[in-house]
Structures are given as structure tokens and as C-alpha cells.
């Protein structure tokens, strides 16, 4: 019996592999387990090898986990591709009708007559998915009612007969693997308080981010579909109008960011969601929004780039572009959400920061976090604080829209406000907003706009941000950003349990950098590992570019395979340096 298990279900895309895994996921959630899923997509549009990984635990999960404890392989390709990537002691389940195990296969393997059982019980080939589901429920020793309820729910619309057939397959499937003693080790402890608690839900990072945006007061979305961010646009399209908002699918990403900029200028909290190629097209107008001090939220669900790259694979390689991604110098805030749960929180914060500092905020997520699903606490609408752009008290011809204030933030007003007028231009302008090219005005206004970042930097240094977990005496530290948070935290906790003292820093605001905080973290360390899912070590460059790291040795650990770091990989990276 165990508290934590990772299973994988793999087979031909479009043939029910993913939906089988999804029912299992939901059954686990409903039974009260914590769940963390991950999907691997084929390059093909339909078909090709699909895989869904489901990690389940009685304890809160923070990472994707290790390789599979149990692999359910629907076909030969699934065995060939995923069969090697097993945890020690892992077990391969496969349908002997659709695959065979190589002679020297190093892991335990048990044939499961999925097809045969399905045909015998129901005569329908397709119900082998339900047989597979049932056999997993059995292996995991999960109370079967959760899966059974979901089957009923799923097939209800198709009539009683279909429900009956599937239930029959399910009951039969529960029995097929009875008795094999090797499977004992895969039995999962049942949750202390069984049943899904009302304060939890299971969502993807993209869903969490979208909900956070709505919670953050987003009322305009201009977007253009792009993997892996399309779900955000579709979620908003489905839901935002019910909150009184507007969603426009635009002709391209330039139009999308333009529409957002226009909407925000006209008073709405506006967002777009995109990925690499789309972010490229937004470059000019993000710079303009910064110049014109227009609040904007741009969610970038990063994928493997550059160019079309690998749209369904993950990467953390847009950081430098997010920070420096317009010609000239344009202050902007860059946030990186760190978990499915945090996607919600950072989305709320993104809107608040955009409004407070009247500038673009780029919120980084990534494919692996956007698509993974996870049980998280239900966020609550009450108690959320929404900041608004500071409103001017005066208006009229002498209204200084771009007043040079101590914080750099100028009170503003919304177009349409009676009695007012002003001009907003991407040309350099004076406090009134009129075009001005004098050297003095230029130097002053650039400084004014950048001062806003200094204001925020000081706040971050004072208030803290993200994980700053620096136990006394640690000589080695690890810095990560974005979706690796849970994995690093898990490994760090494990190592501490083993007596290895490691510090962990995981900021969420990456621009501006809280320079003093970084220094405080790094100073006591002999060595700091900067771990990133990219090739060139972007955070490492950014940190070194802005912070004097003194004598601390900087070790870059990078991976850009398209897959997220696993705890084992993080563990190995630390082991090599601690």
C-alpha cells in the first residue's frame, strides 16, 4: 500500500485513451485524492501516440512526479515509446491482442485482456476503454463507486442501454486483474476523509488563469487562437460575456493587442492570451502601451520555440523576450505563475499591477502548466482586492495626463469623462501629453516611466514575493521560476529530510527584479543553481545582469527537450552541485 502513485495510459490518439484517463482522474478527485496530471501530445492532428499521466496521492501534490509506477499500454507503440520510462518496480499492463513485450524487457509486465473482455461482455470493441478503467480502479484499490457514477453521468445522454453496456464492461473489468500478487504494491491508501471536499476543484493551469482573470476584473479579451493558449480565449469566450464583458476573436495577434490597448484606454481591464509567435507580433504595441502608459495584461503560455517550434511542448524561453521584447526601452512588469493554483493568483495580481502602474504586464505560464490538471483549493471571490488606476481630480485643457510624480504614476481619467479631453500618443510627449522632442523633456519622461518600476521594486523588496526559503547554514541554493516551483520545492523538502540543507528562491515577479532580495538570498551561498527549462539560462543572465552576485558561484542547469523537469532530474542537478 502506498500514498502516492503515478500511472500512465498511452495509446492511439482519438481512441479513448485520454478520456479513459480523464474519468480515472475525476474519480480519484471525487474520492478525495489529490491529483496532478500531465499530457503528451502527438505531432499529428488526430491519431498518433497520445499519453496521459495521472499522479494521485493522499497528500497534496506539487509535481508531475517521476516515471510511471503503472503503465497501461493500449498498443505496441505505447509499449515501445513509454515502456522504458518506468519507475523502479514499475509494472507494465498491456493488452496481448495489441502488443507484445520485448524479450529482455526489464520491468514486470502483466497482460490484460482488454479487447477480449470487452467483446465477451458487450460485443463492442470501444468498451475496452471502460475495461481498462475498471482494471486501473481495481489495481489502485479505489472505491469503485466514483468511477461508476461518472460512467453513468457520461453515457446518460445516450440512453439506458449504452449506460448498461458500459457498466457491464466496468464490472467485468474490475475482475480481470484480480489475484496477481505483484499488483499488491500498487494499492493506494484511501483518503482520510473520503469524497471530494467542497473547497477543492480540479482545473488546468489555463482554466485557473482564466478564472483569475475574471476575478481580476478582466472585462475585455481580444485574442487569436494559438496552441497552447487557445483554451484561455475559448474559456473567456464562453464565460466572460456572462460577467458583462466582451470577447473578440481578432484577425491576428496585432489586432488582438491593438483591441486590448484600445479597450483599456477606453476604461476596460483588458487581456490577451498567446504564445511565442503571437507574442512576437505584439511586440510593437506592447512597447506603445508602455510609452502611452496604458494598462494591459498579456498572458504568454510558453511553448517550445522559436518560430513554430513544437507547439504542444513546453519551454521557459520567453523570459528575456518578455522583458526586452520591444525595440527601444519600454518598462513593463513580468510575472511568472508557478503552479496551477498560482495561475489564478498571478492573473489577479497582473490586472492589479497593470492598473496601478499603468503599464503592460506580461504573465508567463507554459504548456506543461497550462495543460496539466491539478486539484487545488477553490479560490473565493470575496476578499479579493482590486486596484484601479488612480483617477485625476481635475480635468480640462491643463490636465497633466502624464504628470511627473514621485512614484512615476500619473492620475488619469477614462475617455468619455465629461469635461475632459487629452491626447495619448506614442510619440515622446510632455506631461500634458503633447508631442515634445526636447532633450530635457525626453530625459525626464523616460525617467518618469521607469520610476514606476523602481516603485514596484521597492515594494517587492519590502513585502517579499514567491518562495524565499533560505534556512540558516545552507551553502547551496537553487533558484527557479515559473512552473518548476512545485518540483523544486518537493525535491528540496526531500533532501532536507535526508539532511542536505538547500535554500530555494522562486520569485514570481521577474521584472523588476527585487535586487536587494536576490542579494540577500545569494550572499550567504557558496553556490547557486539557476534551473530553467531553456538553453541559454535566461534568468541566470537576467540576475547577473542586474545583481552583483559577489563571490557566489552561479551554476546553470538547463533543459530544453520540450518536457518539464521531473523531480529526479532536479534531484540529480542538485546532487551534482551540493
Amino acid at each position, binding site marked *: 500500500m502506498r500514498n502516492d502513485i503515478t500511472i500512465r495510459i498511452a495509446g492511439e490518439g482519438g481512441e479513448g485513451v485520454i478520456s479513459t484517463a480523464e474519468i480515472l482522474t475525476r474519480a480519484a478527485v471525487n474520492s478525495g485524492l489529490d491529483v496532478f496530471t500531465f499530457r503528451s501530445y502527438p505531432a499529428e492532428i488526430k491519431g498518433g501516440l497520445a499519453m496521459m499521466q495521472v499522479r494521485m496521492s493522499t497528500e497534496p501534490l506539487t509535481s508531475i512526479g517521476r516515471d510511471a509506477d503503472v503503465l497501461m499500454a493500449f498498443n505496441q507503440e505505447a509499449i515501445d515509446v513509454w515502456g522504458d520510462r518506468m519507475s523502479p518496480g514499475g509494472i507494465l499492463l498491456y493488452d496481448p491482442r495489441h502488443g507484445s513485450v520485448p524479450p529482455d524487457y526489464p520491468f514486470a509486465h502483466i497482460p490484460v485482456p482488454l479487447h477480449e473482455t470487452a467483446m465477451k461482455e458487450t460485443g463492442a470493441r470501444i468498451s475496452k476503454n471502460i475495461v481498462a478503467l475498471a482494471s486501473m480502479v481495481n489495481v489502485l484499490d479505489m472505491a469503485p463507486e466514483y468511477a461508476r457514477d461518472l460512467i453513468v453521468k457520461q453515457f446518460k445522454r445516450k440512453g439506458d442501454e449504452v449506460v448498461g453496456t458500459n457498466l457491464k464492461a466496468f464490472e467485468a473489468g474490475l475482475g480481470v486483474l484480480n489475484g496477481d500478487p505483484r499488483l499488491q504494491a500498487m494499492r493506494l491508501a484511501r483518503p482520510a476523509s473520503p469524497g471530494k471536499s467542497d473547497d477543492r476543484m480540479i*482545473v488546468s493551469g489555463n482554466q485557473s488563469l482564466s478564472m483569475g482573470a475574471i476575478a481580476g476584473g478582466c472585462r*475585455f479579451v481580444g485574442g487569436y487562437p494559438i496552441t497552447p493558449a487557445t483554451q484561455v480565449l475559448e474559456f473567456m469566450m464562453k464565460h466572460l460575456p456572462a460577467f458583462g464583458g466582451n470577447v*473578440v476573436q481578432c484577425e491576428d495577434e496585432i*489586432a488582438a493587442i491593438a483591441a486590448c490597448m*484600445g479597450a483599456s484606454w477606453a476604461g476596460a481591464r483588458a487581456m490577451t492570451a498567446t504564445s511565442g509567435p503571437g507574442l512576437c507580433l505584439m511586440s*510593437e504595441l506592447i512597447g506603445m502601451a508602455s510609452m502611452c502608459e496604458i494598462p494591459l495584461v498579456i498572458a504568454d503560455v510558453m511553448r517550445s520555440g522559436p518560430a513554430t517550434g513544437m507547439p504542444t511542448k513546453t519551454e521557459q524561453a520567453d523570459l528575456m523576450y518578455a522583458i526586452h521584447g520591444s525595440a527601444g526601452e519600454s518598462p513593463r512588469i513580468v510575472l511568472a505563475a508557478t503552479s496551477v493554483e498560482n495561475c489564478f493568483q498571478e492573473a489577479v495580481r497582473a490586472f492589479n499591477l497593470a492598473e496601478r502602474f499603468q503599464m503592460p504586464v506580461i504573465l508567463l505560464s507554459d504548456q506543461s502548466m497550462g495543460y496539466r490538471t491539478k486539484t487545488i483549493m477553490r479560490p473565493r471571490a470575496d476578499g479579493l482586492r482590486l486596484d484601479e488606476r488612480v483617477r485625476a481630480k481635475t480635468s480640462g485643457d491643463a490636465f497633466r495626463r502624464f504628470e511627473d510624480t514621485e512614484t512615476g504614476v500619473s492620475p488619469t481619467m477614462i475617455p468619455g469623462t465629461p469635461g475632459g479631453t487629452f491626447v495619448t500618443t*506614442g510619440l515622446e510627449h510632455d506631461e500634458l501629453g503633447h508631442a515634445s522632442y526636447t532633450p530635457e523633456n525626453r530625459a525626464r519622461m523616460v525617467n518618469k516611466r521607469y520610476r514606476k518600476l523602481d516603485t514596484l521594486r521597492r515594494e517587492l523588496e519590502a513585502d517579499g514575493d514567491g518562495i524565499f526559503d533560505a534556512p540558516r547554514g545552507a551553502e547551496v541554493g537553487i533558484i527557479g521560476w515559473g512552473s518548476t516551483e512545485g518540483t523544486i520545492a518537493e525535491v528540496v523538502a526531500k533532501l532536507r529530510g535526508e539532511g542536505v540543507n538547500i535554500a530555494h528562491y522562486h520569485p514570481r515577479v521577474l521584472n523588476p527584479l527585487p535586487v536587494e532580495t536576490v542579494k540577500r538570498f545569494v550572499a550567504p551561498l557558496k553556490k547557486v543553481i539557476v534551473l530553467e527549462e531553456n538553453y541559454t539560462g535566461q534568468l541566470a543572465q537576467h540576475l547577473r545582469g542586474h545583481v552583483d552576485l559577489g563571490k557566489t558561484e552561479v551554476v546553470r542547469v538547463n533543459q530544453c527537450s520540450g518536457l518539464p523537469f521531473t523531480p529526479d532530474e532536479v534531484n540529480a542537478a542538485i546532487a551534482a552541485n551540493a
Partner: protein
Amino acid sequence: MPEAALQKAKDYKNDVEPIWCPGCGDFGDLAAFTQALAAMQLTTSDIAIVSGIGCSGRFSHFIKSYALHTAHGRALPTAVGVKTANPKLTVFVVGGDGDGLSIGGGHLPHAARRNPDITYLILDNAIYGLTKGQTSPTSPFGMVTGTSPTGLEDPPLDPLRMFLSYGVGFVARGFSSDVKGVAKMVQAAVEHPGFSIVQLISPCPTFNQVITFDFMKERVVPLPESHDATSLDAAFRMALDAEHFYTGVFYRNDSLPTMEAKLDVQRKHTMDRQPRTLDALIAQY
């Protein structure tokens, strides 16, 4: 300016002096524009002018209004956002032929499909003015410019036919010397519910020695009284006419649903089907 008093054209002009060359065709458009505003007695704080980059793009700086002087070619999609978020504003888009038909040309068909209640004035001088004289998509065949030193070999685009083929519900053409005529056209365009485009021939005496005021004056002919602006066929025909260079309202169809109306419908449908509070939404998961 007390907003209740009767506004004259000059009351809509602010204190910023246009940076245009003396004799620039854009002055006529500016005069006509303020006349149109006065004719409609619009409240300055209800006006939003979104402009592109070019000599013409500076237009928005000179009018009492909320003005957004955006990037080259992006005034139109920006204005779509403005209008969506704040539909009570009377929204104008102003820009040049390069801005609207070259770099920004891709946005037009999609604005037409959406049909926001926006009036778009294209100040067409058949040249890139601000960058000091290169060919634009409406430059005439054979013209010599900085980028056509041996004479332009491509034919100009035919903007009116394009707008008609996009399904734009109000298509007109004016000549900036005809201030009164342009003012009327602008007013009609604003009164049209939905997307309206007015192409305003506005010569650039500094860089275009072909499409001059004199050249245009000889060619411009008002559309015949008999022209039926409700007929798309007739509009295409008059736009195509090789002998006459007509000005006036070529096409007007007031019955197309506007973007704002369509978004309202979408909102209503969604409210009927989906949760309206965050807690209710979250409870679905």
C-alpha cells in the same frame, strides 16, 4: 468650454497648431471635420479619435477630444477595442493611404465583418508624406518617387471597390478642397449605424506633383443625383467608372447589425446559459 452652449466649428479645434506644410490637403479635412462636429453638436468629451502614423495621423492632436495616436496601421483595430469597451463614445479613425491600405490594410475586411459603429476617414494623398515621398498603394502608375526612381510600374489599388467587396455598409469619397461636401459626408458617415469609410483625396503639395489640387479639380465629379446608394451593384459600377472620378456616397446600407448589437446578443445568450458570478463559475469545477 461649457458643454451645453452651442458649439461652433472652431470650438472643436484645440490650441495645438498643425505641423502640416502650408497648403497641405489635410487642412481642408480638418476644417470639414470640425464643421461636421458642429453640425452634429457632439460633446467634445464624447468624441474619441484614434489615428495612425503619417502626416495625416497627427489629425487627432488638433481636435478637442479624447485622442489616441497609435502605431502605423493599427488605428482601426485599436478603435474596435475602444468602441467595444466604451460604446457611448463617437469613435473616429483617421489615417493615411499608406497607414490604412498598405500596412494596415489587413484589418479592413475584418472590421467590415464586425461592423462596429465607427467612422474611418482615410486621408489619401497617394504618397507617403511623413517619410518624405515614397509610393503608396494609391500612387498612380508611372509616378517617380524615392522608391520608384524609374517610375512606378504597379497599378494603384482601387479602395472603393475593395471596401464594397468587404461588405462595408457605408462607402464614400470626398475631396479635401470641397470642405462643405466633406463635412456633409462625414456627418452622414457618423449617422450611419455601423462601420463607415470615407476616402478623402487630400493632395500633398510637398511630395506629390502628380495628384495635385489642380489635377484633382479637373477630374472630380459629384455622383449623379440619380445614383442609388442602396444598390451594391450601382455602387460597384460607379466605383469602376473609368471616365469619371466620382465623389459622394457610393453605398449605404443601414440595416446591417452593428458589432455592439451583436456583442449584446452574445452577452444575453451567455448570461442565459452560463454562471454570472465567480463563485458560481468556480463551483462548476
